[in-house]
């Protein structure tokens, strides 16, 4: 693998194929854990570790895992690493564990991880898979961090728990609530469109294109089929 190629694998996840802002994967933790910067970064890093481990593991086993059994195998591997990360967080960072709660468990069903296993790690060598995992993980963390910064600074007048006194008068408390998350996410996607002048390959609608289950998907007007048509 050439140096430039591995670099592009790495940066892909951060910029061109940012899982949150471009691929629109992993919406659930993106919305739920971005009320505080600490929680968002914790979530991002936890997902990064799981992504890296599962990508490496799956890539190592890619020739052993039978084609027909691959999804159950992937799920077991991912769920295993999620539990390991969860136990480590609970033991070493109890405060973060309290903040993330059930969303830590739900990394298991985060589309990003299963999606990367299906699309990349299952077909590529170990080093590339590891780089892909780290790149995607960083992309996920950065996007979560950015969104959490907006929500926490403008919603709670603090940054990573440190109060910003002059913002206190102007805070918009609803940004830290559920509707605020949806609103900020929507605005961010619009912003990405404006910045890239509409050239970014942002999915304009929620398609099944990157969905790990797309093969099996039988919904009539699934966008993948729409695109193909």
């Amino acid at each position, binding site marked *: 693998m050439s140096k430039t190629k591995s670099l592009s694998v790495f940066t892909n996840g951060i910029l061109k194929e940012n899982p949150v802002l471009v691929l*629109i994967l992993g*919406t*659930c933790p993106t*919305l*739920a854990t971005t009320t505080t910067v600490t929680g968002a970064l914790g979530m991002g890093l936890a997902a990064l570790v799981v992504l890296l481990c599962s990508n490496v593991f799956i890539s190592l086993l890619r020739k052993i895992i039978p084609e027909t059994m691959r*999804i*159950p195998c992937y*799920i*077991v591997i991912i*769920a*295993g690493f*999620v*539990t390991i990360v*969860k*136990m480590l967080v609970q033991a070493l960072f109890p405060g973060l564990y309290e903040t993330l*709660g*059930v969303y830590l*468990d*739900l990394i*298991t*069903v*985060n*589309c990003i991880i*299963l999606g990367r296993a299906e699309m990349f790690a299952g077909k590529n060598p170990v080093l590339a898979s590891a780089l892909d995992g780290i790149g995607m993980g960083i992309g996920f963390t950065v996007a979560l961090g950015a969104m959490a910064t907006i929500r926490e600074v403008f919603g709670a007048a603090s940054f990573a728990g440190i109060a910003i006194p002059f913002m206190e008068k102007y805070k918009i408390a*609803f940004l830290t*609530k*559920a*509707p*605020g*998350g*949806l*609103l900020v*996410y*929507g*605005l961010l*996607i*619009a*912003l990405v*469109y*404006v910045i890239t002048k*509409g050239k970014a390959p*942002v*999915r*304009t*609608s*929620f*398609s*099944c294109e990157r*969905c*790990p*289950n797309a093969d*099996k*998907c*039988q*919904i*009539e*007007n699934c966008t993948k089929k729409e695109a193909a048509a």
Partner: protein
Amino acid sequence: MEQFKLLVVILLSAVFVDNYVLCRFLGICPFLGVSKKLDQAAGMGVAVSLVMLLATAVTWPIQRFVLDALNMGYLQNIVFILIIATLVQILEMLLKKLSPALYKGLGVYLPLITTNCAVLGVTINNILDGYSFVESMVSTLGCGLGFLLAMVLFSGLRSRIHESKIPAPFRGLAVTLIAASFVSLAFMGFAGIVENIFG
């Protein structure tokens, strides 16, 4: 009577106050993806509710009588997700064989449900909240109904958005998310009502 009141409160909270999709963001993928048409939204909602109920009925006893008894709580995640995946497979096969009509209606949504975080979320949450079996089932029913309600409501909204003229940057997902934000805002109004429903 007290028990009944508690169950009603659990049910209503799950549907309105802690709506899985709009307040906890669980199952947001199908919410954004499969809510374009009313029939699809309803089909997905019913399928998810069904799988949720089945999954809770199986995972709760397993957690209580197997994992807790063997002191192997750390296998919870793996066991639950495998149970959900297996259930979905079995349900799909059964539907295909027994009722092709129903399969046509619901079956197509089933493969998507394995990785729906609402299903794994509800089974884990029931354990975390320390609910009894009956309470777990009621809470799961509430979550399913809440999901269905959110899907159906939102599909109506989306068909209106579809007809409107929207500025370019907001077209597609952005406006969908912002619309979802307003629906979620409306659901915030339920907070505090349900707890005091019996005075």
